[in-house]
């Protein structure tokens, strides 16, 4: 099988203008992955599926990863001239920078026809708040249908072009995305919005309103 670097070069030659980056994996498994840009993701996926030399006909696993915003503290040594006129001093300087967070979707592809794989594709969202859309690969591999719905449900990534993007494991009225790293469990599970609230409100219509409570009788002396 081609290495990931060869595959990247092949994709870049085939799709000029596309951005394909190798994300290397330092673990002993050495399963490196390819980061794709949104504009070419579906074309590249179709190419990977249909090209006779590749034939990645099965997308085995789809999952999301949450990478929250990170604060990175870097310490650098800076040479500062001494204002008193002495020899320049070496001062340790700490700078803090923030690395923006994003959500990532990972696809594991295998070829049943040629018995090779895995090829791992990654798609990243712009941030974790409002730019959370990535192109859906369900039109390319049917197996993405439920798994992308799961990523949408648990991570909050929206898939453009997905035929039926609804929550799948959590209920429809649920608001948050529980697999995000900063998800906080509600203090009171009873409060959590459930379909029962609406149902109970509807059910109230069927019952006559209770008469106003009578004033409490005066306590006997």
């Amino acid at each position, binding site marked *: 099988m081609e290495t990931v670097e060869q595959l990247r070069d092949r994709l870049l030659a085939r799709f000029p203008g596309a951005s394909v980056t190798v994300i290397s994996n330092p*673990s002993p498994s050495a399963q490196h992955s390819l980061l794709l840009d949104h504009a070419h993701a579906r074309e590249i996926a179709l190419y990977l599926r249909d090209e006779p030399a590749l034939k990645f006909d099965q997308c085995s696993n789809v999952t999301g990863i949450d990478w929250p915003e990170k604060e990175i503290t870097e310490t650098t040594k800076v040479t500062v001239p001494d204002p008193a006129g002495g020899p320049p001093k070496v001062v340790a300087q700490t700078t803090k920078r923030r690395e923006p967070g994003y959500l990532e979707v990972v696809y594991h592809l295998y070829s049943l026809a040629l018995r090779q794989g895995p090829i791992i594709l990654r798609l990243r969202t712009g941030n974790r708040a409002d730019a959370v859309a990535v192109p859906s690969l369900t039109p390319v591999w049917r197996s993405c249908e*439920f798994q992308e719905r799961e990523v949408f449900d648990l991570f909050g990534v929206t898939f453009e072009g997905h035929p039926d993007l609804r929550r799948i494991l959590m209920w429809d009225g649920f608001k948050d995305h529980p697999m995000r790293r900063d998800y906080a469990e509600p203090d009171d599970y009873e409060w959590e919005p459930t379909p029962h609230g609406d149902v109970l409100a509807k059910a109230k219509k069927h019952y006559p309103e209770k008469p106003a409570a009578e004033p409490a009788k005066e306590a006997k002396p």
Partner: protein
Amino acid sequence: MSLTPEIGGAHVRAVHDEFHGDLLEVSMGPHHPSTHGVFRMIVTLDGETIVKLKPVFGYLHRNHEKLGENTTYLASMPYTDRLDYLNSMSNNWAYALAVEKLAGLAVPERAEYVRVILAELTRLLNHTCLAGFLMQDCGCSGTPLMYAFREREKILDLFESLSGSRMMCNYQRFGGCRVDPPAEWLAGAQRLVDGYSAFLDEFEALLTGNEILMARTQGVGRLDPALAVSAGVAGPMLRATGVGHDLRKVDGYGVYPRFEFRVPVGAHGDTYDRYMIRILEMRESIRILQQALAGLPGGPVMDPKAKLRGFRPKAGEAYGRIEGPKGEIGFYLISDGGPNPYRYRVRPPSFINLTILEDMCLGHTVADAVIILGSVDIVLGEVDR
């Protein structure tokens, strides 16, 4: 009347013509006994014919993956038992394999053999149960299921004597197995394997040629091989469509390349083929078990360098998968160097095999949908996680 209606849009008719009248929407489950747990499907019916089927998940959801991220690597091992609670030994192996890939651990030869023995016993257990449940779904109430459970109990007794628990085995470890199976246990396993063919002969004499079973299952729930591959269908479901894909052969993980066995494939991809594939796979499992029990080497069952406490793999990621009884069960792990996995993902075969449930059921009746679902072989602990 043909028993094999076309799959796809052929039977999906206009919704409100005068002849068919209104459609009926039926919510099957989550408490319907035929749904094997708390699975629910919203079925739209034209008379008795299914024109639309939408599965609804999540009644057993407990966010298994979040639990995996909040505990250490080793502490997730017992949680994997609860995924597909019929096949805890296979789940353990898949998880151990993924962690071994992530950390680069070696497994002693004896442990690999023990894993094969346990995984194949699990396959026997799962397929026997499936055949019993499928008969139950067909309306053959009781007898085959009780026969299947009688054999299952024998295997569970073996599991209990080895691991301490019938179903929640928690037996595999990263770099080997928890305890070394003693000679008496191996003798017991040998006795069970020797007697299993006779049980299968009896079971098949009762069922395989049965005319009612053939009428109920042949041509029902056909699955197209190209669609099956595209939809990520794995395991016996995929092989029943004629695609000879078995990870024991393709990946050759563990010591499977040393054993001689065949991969049965179906010809029609219907419910009967899915039943038959399981029976044939059990025959092959018995062959593997005979070879593994005969060739079991001595030595340790744990890699002496493997650490159980304070286990912190280096940063990186790995995807490990095995051929579970229900299909490809895989674990995707990302380590950031800490004691807990940064990301812990299960690739659940039962869940992904349900992607094409609607395609298989369209044009069939509700009674057929029940046996099609039965032949998919789902366990809700794994579907909903």
